[in-house]
């Protein structure tokens, strides 16, 4: 038995080394999915820093208004554009989008009126209609700033207050949801696009034919490739994880053992799809359309780029049976809901079914030349 496994391990070891020497392979397996992660992370990542670029015109010379300006400058929510000195200029900058709003402190703002005995005034906020959100947010922030100041001058007991406090639970961001799809995409491109390119090319160049002159068995060659690709798949997923967690604060709620085991199972199943297609195809002309035919429906319907719940029901039913769907669903359930592998019965059953089916097909259709 050991003798039978020797070519498996020898080949897998060499195959992994070979992959890390191949720049094109590294790009498609490691860098390409990372680019997607960076793009989607940039779009959907945790938006913690709400900030406004504002213009500030102070027409008042009161001590209060000086103080108020200093306060605004210290406030992290505001970035004050120092170049804006007139309303005209501010409008121009707003038109360009480089300034969100203009705050004007009119003449006499903060002057102490004789009858009241405390300073008063109205700050004017100007925003463009296309930036409603900035205007409303800015208005309410300023109001709360003033409310605090007002309370200092006029002591009022407010009957109703709101207590706002953040809980320990961090909500899921869109990226948390999409991330599992990106992991699925990583495994899909490794499993399907890899072998459908490589095997036909090796046939055309007679490399597989040369292997066929040796006593190597098809199962040994398959096992070797499955081994090396599972390893590489794990590395690619690990890299995605490190970047996602470090850069975009993606939350991982499940256990890593479940994640690793599901990743390996998914890689083996999807590699089987590529192996069946690439093992059957005689040349690259046959393989390329076949790879696209297999990969693209999965890419668009299994929830890589679009959530499946947005699709019509019949399409969801169809895509339920794609091998990529249970993988992505399973990864998502582990990552966002903290499920363990044992709680993923339906997903594992579907993947298991595919595992048996696709390798039966792959063994039947494989040809060495």
């Amino acid at each position: 038995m050991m003798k039978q496994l020797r070519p498996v391990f020898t080949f897998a070891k060499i195959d992994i080394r070979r992959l890390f020497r191949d720049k094109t392979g590294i790009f498609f397996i490691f860098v390409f999915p990372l680019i997607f992660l960076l793009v989607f992370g940039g779009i959907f990542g945790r938006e913690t820093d709400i900030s406004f670029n504002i213009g500030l015109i102070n027409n008042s010379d009161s001590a209060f208004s000086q103080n108020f300006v200093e306060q605004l400058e210290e406030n992290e929510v505001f970035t004050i554009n120092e170049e804006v000195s007139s309303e005209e200029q501010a409008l121009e900058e707003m038109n360009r989008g480089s300034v969100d709003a203009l705050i004007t402190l009119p003449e006499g703002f903060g002057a102490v009126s004789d009858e009241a005995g405390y300073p008063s005034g109205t700050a004017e906020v100007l925003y463009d209609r296309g930036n409603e959100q900035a205007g409303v947010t800015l208005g309410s922030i300023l109001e709360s700033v003033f409310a605090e100041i007002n309370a200092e001058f006029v002591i009022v007991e407010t009957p109703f207050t709101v207590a706002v406090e953040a809980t320990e639970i961090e909500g899921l961001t869109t990226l948390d949801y999409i991330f599992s799809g990106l992991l699925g995409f990583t495994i899909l491109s490794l499993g399907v696009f890899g072998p459908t390119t490589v095997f036909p090319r090796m046939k055309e160049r007679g490399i597989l034919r040369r292997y066929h002159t040796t006593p190597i068995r098809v199962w040994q060659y398959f096992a070797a490739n499955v081994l090396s690709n599972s390893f590489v798949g794990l590395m690619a997923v690990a890299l995605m994880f490190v970047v996602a967690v470090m850069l975009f604060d993606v939350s991982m709620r499940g256990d890593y053992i479940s994640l690793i085991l599901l990743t390996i199972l998914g890689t083996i199943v999807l590699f089987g799809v590529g192996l069946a297609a690439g093992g059957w195809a005689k040349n690259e002309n046959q393989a390329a359309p076949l790879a696209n035919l297999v990969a693209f429906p999965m890419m668009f319907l299994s929830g890589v780029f679009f959530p499946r719940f947005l699709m019509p029901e019949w399409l969801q039913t169809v895509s339920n049976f794609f091998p990529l769907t249970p993988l992505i669903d399973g990864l998502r359930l582990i990552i966002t809901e903290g499920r363990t592998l044992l709680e993923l019965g339906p997903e594992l059953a579907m993947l298991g079914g595919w595992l048996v089916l696709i390798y039966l097909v792959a063994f039947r259709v494989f040809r060495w030349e």
Partner: protein
Amino acid sequence: MSNAILEVKNLKKAYGSNMAVDGVSFSVKRGEVFGILGPNGAGKTTTLEMIEAMRPIDGGTCVLDGIDVSKNSRKIKQMIGVQPQTASFEEKTKLTELLEFFASTYGERVDTTKLLADMQLSEKADAYPESLSGGQRQRFSIAAALVNKPTVLFLDEPTTGLDPQARRNLWDLIESIRDNGVTVILTTHYMDEAEKLCDRVAIMDGGKIIALDSPDKLIKKLLKRGFKKEKQVAQANLEDVFIDLTGKELRA
């Protein structure tokens, strides 16, 4: 142990209605270099591939060292070495790694250092096959065919596309392999090569063997029939001139 290591009887292979190999019979003696000659499409490669257990045998029998090829393909592959026509290897893989892998398919380990040294490829141990010259690639291809210490070595057009120096160098190598007790069966388009290397040759055409004997005897038979060359045979030819001018030293 019989004197013949390979017995081929009435071997047949059909592709559709075309008989690629049409009732070929011959035997190869233990330890000889046996050549199969013939124009393209004569059925040389197909014949080899059936003996190598690479292709199903449609008719006839083929017994290698007492083992029926059609019934024991795995056993046959275990004891032979094969260099297919225009052999090619995976890129970005060191020669030592490739040899290790080939050895492992036989369930064996191999002394890559010695094997590469025997093939004059010591300094290329860590090189990738795509960086080898034509001659080096053929030598490596033969090295890969020797990892399991085969009883019979099959070489399909081993010197096609090589320069005269590399060709001569390969002849020496093949002779030294033969001297180590390995039976060599090769195909070639070069008659000088067959004359120099082969103890006996079979000439094939249209899927059949039309002559089989030692090169000397085949030539004598032809002369007996009164054959005369149009041009007076010179004591040297252009290749002799070429080798005299450029030397036997192996290039790249």
